[in-house]
């Protein structure tokens, strides 16, 4: 059985972020022993037998990596798990280099087959690769993709404080909040994405209105409209944008090019709206409507508003 160190990071409001709690849940499902190491959640309680809370004035990915590597050695652990977030993906390879271990990014499944086996998509999800660590120490570092593992429950183990390492190379000086506090596509449970079928940038207002009607939806975009300058890079879903797996993905005026599909095909439910009945997106969608997005969107938005009000 394995002993796993799990890094629990804070979200913008200073509580443990959900993706980290999913990493903790994943570790508990395959590990005999789990040590949670948190930063920035003020020692708040977690569902783990042991919880170390790093305390430091400045955050740096190198400092956190040094702490995780030191705790790995002290605990005699076999693996380090982080959430596949901007922070987790930044820190994990540094921990791997310090431990002389492989780094497996964006893991979607885990199993214990006489040692941990990690399943991860490659080629933007067109290929599934299963790997295990085979180095002399057998150590592995992994980041776990969100929405793939059940989150750890509320816990009772408060963090024991530990001074964070002073190994600061690149130092975080500021986090500027995103414009209007908009929900990011990588975190949203519902995504409404638009493509060329919207015809012009101003028509994305209809996409924004539908997202607003759900209340907890983010706006996404195809590569074509991002490259055309209609929408910001941060909204792009696909092989050269963000990979997402929300509960509901609504693709509007998006044909379903392989590079877009790669970023959203593991969404739980997919809805496609497109005027071309032969568009490849309909092969992927659970539910499709054939027709002009500009006519359908306002009606759909009103219907969703009604449904949410009645819920």
């Amino acid at each position, binding site marked *: 059985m394995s002993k796993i160190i799990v890094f629990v990071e804070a*979200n*913008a409001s200073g509580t443990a972020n959900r993706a980290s709690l999913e990493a903790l849940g994943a570790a508990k499902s395959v590990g005999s022993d789990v040590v949670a190491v948190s930063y920035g959640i003020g020692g708040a309680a977690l569902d783990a037998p042991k919880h170390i809370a790093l305390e430091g004035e400045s955050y740096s*990915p190198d400092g956190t990596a040094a702490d995780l590597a030191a705790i790995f050695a002290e605990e005699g652990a076999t693996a380090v798990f982080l959430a596949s977030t*901007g*922070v987790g*993906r930044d820190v*994990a*390879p*540094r921990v*791997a*280099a310090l431990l002389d*271990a*492989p*780094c*497996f*990014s*964006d893991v979607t499944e885990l199993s214990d087959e006489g040692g941990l*086996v990690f399943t991860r998509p*490659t*080629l*933007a999800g*067109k*290929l*599934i*690769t*299963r790997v*295990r*660590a*085979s*180095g*002399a120490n057998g150590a592995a570092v992994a980041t776990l993709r969100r929405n793939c593992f059940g989150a750890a429950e509320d816990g009772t183990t408060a963090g024991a404080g530990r001074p964070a390492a002073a190994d600061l*190379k*690149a*130092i*975080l*000086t500021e*986090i*500027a909040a*995103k414009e209007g506090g908009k929900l*990011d596509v*990588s*975190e949203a449970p519902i995504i409404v994405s638009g493509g060329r079928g919207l015809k012009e940038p101003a028509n994305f207002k209809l996409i924004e209105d539908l997202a607003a009607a759900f209340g907890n939806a983010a706006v996404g975009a195809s590569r074509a409209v991002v490259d055309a300058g209609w929408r910001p*890079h941060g909204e792009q879903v696909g*092989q*050269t944008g963000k990979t997402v797996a929300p509960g509901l993905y609504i693709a509007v005026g998006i044909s379903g090019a392989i590079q877009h599909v790669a970023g959203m095909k593991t969404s739980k*439910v997919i809805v496609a709206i497109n005027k071309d009945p032969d568009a490849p997106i309909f092969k*992927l969608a*659970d*539910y*499709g*409507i*054939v*027709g002009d997005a500009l*006519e*359908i969107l306002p009606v*759909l938005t009103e*219907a*969703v508003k009604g*449904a949410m009000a009645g*819920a």
Partner: protein
Amino acid sequence: MNIVACIKRVPATETQPKVAADGMGLDHSALEYMLSFYDEIALEEAIRSKEAHGGEVTALTLGPTEASKELRDCLARGADKGRVSLDPACHPREPRTTPTPTAATDTARGAELVFCGRQATDRDNAAVGPMLATMLGWSCVTDVIELHIDGTSATAKRESERGIEHFRFTLPAVITCQKGLNEPRYAGLKGIMAAKKKPIEEAEPMLVESATEVVGVSLPPARPAGRIVGEGPDAVPALLEALRTEAKVL
């Protein structure tokens, strides 16, 4: 300033991959290759840094001799020289996060700035840049969307779920490049002609054993077939009903 851009040739984006007969990797026999998308941004930033601060840009890749084709493209866009760290067996020994950055350390040691793409678009592992920096004891900022260099001091911005993160650091450093950092240039005719005279050297890097064992490779399961609920705005009630009662997402 000596600048290195780490690049990789990857299967073309439109590739529909096939699994090799032994079930342990990608069938490389019929693949088309291209320069990895984010590596174009890394190369562009390397060339812009040279234009702003002087120096020389080396485009570095690890792979078989054939990878010099992608290096020639980098030279045409403005890199000064190319270097192939030879690894004829790079495909059978995939995936290997530790050996790749190890092989880059020799070339990187002679530089002040190393640029990598945020991830290669084949393995999507996003590990080489920060692993290389950690092996060298250098600063590293990943997924960079804005970079300013002033002597040996630098600042960079990256986007995470928390917002736009601002970092301060000193050179030497490894930067991994995200879409939005710049708009990569294309090679012009003049560049293509000039590239023919630029050197590409081959090197025998230190290749350590991979600490990764492949258990198996497969194609992802197909999604169950869906259905068209109707045409035009009149289909909206049927869609909502399906989302509520079948999919239960409302």
